[in-house]
């Protein structure tokens, strides 16, 4: 099946990132977002994000114009483009909400249309069971910024057919120029599970007094050629989200993979959510550059003794 038209449910961070990448890759898009303000803000942010690409020479004005012209925003599911061959659901990672949306889509979309959930933690199989096309349901997860990161996690549930998997793999590879990897459904897939474990372990190292937060980041950046260390990554993603993932994975994966470190929820309660509040493991200046250590600065550097 040739995919030319795609619909995205949700215009928050993940929906927006996807819309930007897919429109630049030449797909015709409909974004369905029930909240009008979120939809409008979504369009503004997509444009800002494209301007940022232009400022770094990754895009031209005419490419931006053509891409924006391919995106259509609507506020009701009934207005979705029924010709779409693929629908992305990017709403909050809440199982009941997702099941509800998938079952509604099942009623209105063409029977050949594939539905994918952009979820890191929900069960594709459980979502698929809410539809009459469980073989056409899969997960497809990209990492932000979607335009830059070349990875796509193609997640198969227990009902996902080989044909669905092959179509999605082709879509990702040829349509989006990304490298697909195959995952059999499990909470956290690869990237989130590894990331959460790493941040959790890094916190343990810091709290034991083995090393400071910035030294741990420096070690991982220089040692493993990472652009950001675990703490900086956590701040960038948002500690509220990290905390949700930690709890969910702990609950679903069991005690074996480590109890969530209580410091993350402590910071979240204090409103120190990372880069977006300019306070997290680090504090940030207006340009988003690290200007010092955050509230956990009670973990003093050795040299200050």
């Amino acid at each position, binding site marked *: 099946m*040739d995919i*030319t038209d795609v619909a995205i449910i949700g215009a928050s961070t993940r929906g927006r990132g996807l819309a930007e990448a897919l429109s630049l890759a*030449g797909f*015709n898009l409909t974004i369905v977002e029930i909240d009008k303000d979120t939809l409008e803000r979504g369009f503004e942010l997509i444009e800002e994000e494209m301007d940022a690409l232009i400022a*770094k*020479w*990754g*895009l*031209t004005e005419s490419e931006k114009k053509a891409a924006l012209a391919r995106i259509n925003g609507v506020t009701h599911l009934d207005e979705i483009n029924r010709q779409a061959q693929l629908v992305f659901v990017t709403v909050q990672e809440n199982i009941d909400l997702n099941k509800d949306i998938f079952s509604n889509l099942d009623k209105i979309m063409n029977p050949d249309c594939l539905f994918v959930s952009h979820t890191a933690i929900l069960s594709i199989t459980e979502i698929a069971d809410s539809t009459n096309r469980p073989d056409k349901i899969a997960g497809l997860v990209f990492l932000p910024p979607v335009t*830059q990161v070349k990875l796509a996690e193609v997640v198969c549930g227990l009902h996902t057919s080989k044909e669905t998997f092959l179509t999605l793999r082709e879509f990702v590879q040829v349509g989006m120029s990304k490298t697909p990897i195959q995952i059999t459904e499990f909470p956290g897939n690869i990237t989130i599970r590894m990331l959460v474990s790493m941040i959790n372990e890094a916190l343990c190292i810091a709290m034991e007094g083995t090393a400071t937060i910035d030294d741990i980041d420096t070690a991982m950046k220089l040692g493993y050629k990472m652009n950001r260390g675990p703490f900086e990554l956590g701040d960038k993603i948002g500690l509220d989200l990290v905390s949700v993932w930690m709890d969910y994975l702990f609950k679903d994966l069991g005690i074996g993979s480590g109890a969530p470190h209580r410091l993350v929820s402590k910071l979240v309660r204090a409103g120190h959510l990372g880069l977006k509040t300019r306070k997290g493991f680090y504090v940030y200046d207006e340009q988003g550059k690290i200007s010092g250590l955050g509230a956990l600065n009670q973990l003093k550097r050795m040299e200050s003794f």
Partner: protein
Amino acid sequence: MKILVLNSGSSSIKFQLLNMNGEVLLVKGMVSKIGTRSATLSMDIPGKEKVKEVSEILDHQSALENIVKALLSEKLAIIQDESEIIAVGHRVVHGGESYSASVAIDDSVIKEIRQLFELAPLHNPPNLKGIEVCRRLFPSKPQVAVFDTAFHQTMPAKAYIYPLPYVLYRRYKIRRYGFHGTSHAYVARQCAKKMNKDMKDLNIITVHLGNGCSITAIEKGQVVDTSMGLTPLEGLVMGTRSGDIDPSIITFVMAQEELGLHEANAMLNKHSGLLGISGVSNDMKDLMDASETTERAQLAIDVFCYRLKKYIAAYAGVLAGVDAIVFTGGIGENASKVRELSCEGLAFMGIEMDVEKNARPSDNEDLSTGKLKTRIFRIPTNEELVIAQETKRIVVGE
């Protein structure tokens, strides 16, 4: 004897149908925005009104089917039967080191074109797509590939080897290939005709200034050097491409601005050149219009002409004297100021433009003062005609 000429791009197919008895253009046109519901088929039939249709065309196959249908339509009366088209000529950008001339397409040629994807990732894949679709649609018609790189294959190693570790040439075939070969070959031949001489008795510099710009030194009919290199980014300043720069600038800017490979590539290919300097436009005509009021528009023109002059003088040295310089391409044919500035001050080496004649050029006239060695011509290029001629030569022999 009718020949169809195709130039297949990623989302467009340009085509011309020529009657080779007398080399008459029957129709030229293009399908654009392939892959969308608003694809456009436009056609220009000499002496008739222009045709434009918008419809859903999702791939190259249906684009070509639409073209054939239009050619056969009773209303347009271009041809009555598909069998009137005796062969199809394809523009293929990169022929690598394998092809120094046009070639009849068979499975091995297709395999070779595919192997060159790495060297021309933007051009060879859609070129091949056009060929494959044609082989499906017209399995019995001969198809010919005409390569942009072929004419330049006579260059000696000293001109095509880069001063880099030689292992890179061995491993990746990193060397100068040159592009626009079909255009350079055509205008050089036309130039010899105008001078009533054989190409073998002439040293010619051909200057192709269009969207992309390149310059070629042709000694006794053979290319000895050309300004584009491994890719069409090297050499002259272009609309949005930088041409020659200090290679260290790339790594410096990538580090300072935290650019990835894609951004660095796009910066050099899409945000540089005339557009990059001027900040106004990549179009020479826009810059000429803006030059009196916008300093950087004038600066862009100055850099463009200055660098072109350096190449002309260098190639005059390579050829040990030039019999003729030919300007072609959109800018080369229309921007008299560019022709004038790029030859200015070269009288000491036999190149002197007659500013009056150059301002009002006719296609046949020598634009030089006629007092010194070098003739200067403006000759409109016609790559499609060359592709059709080559196709005819290969299909029916000379």
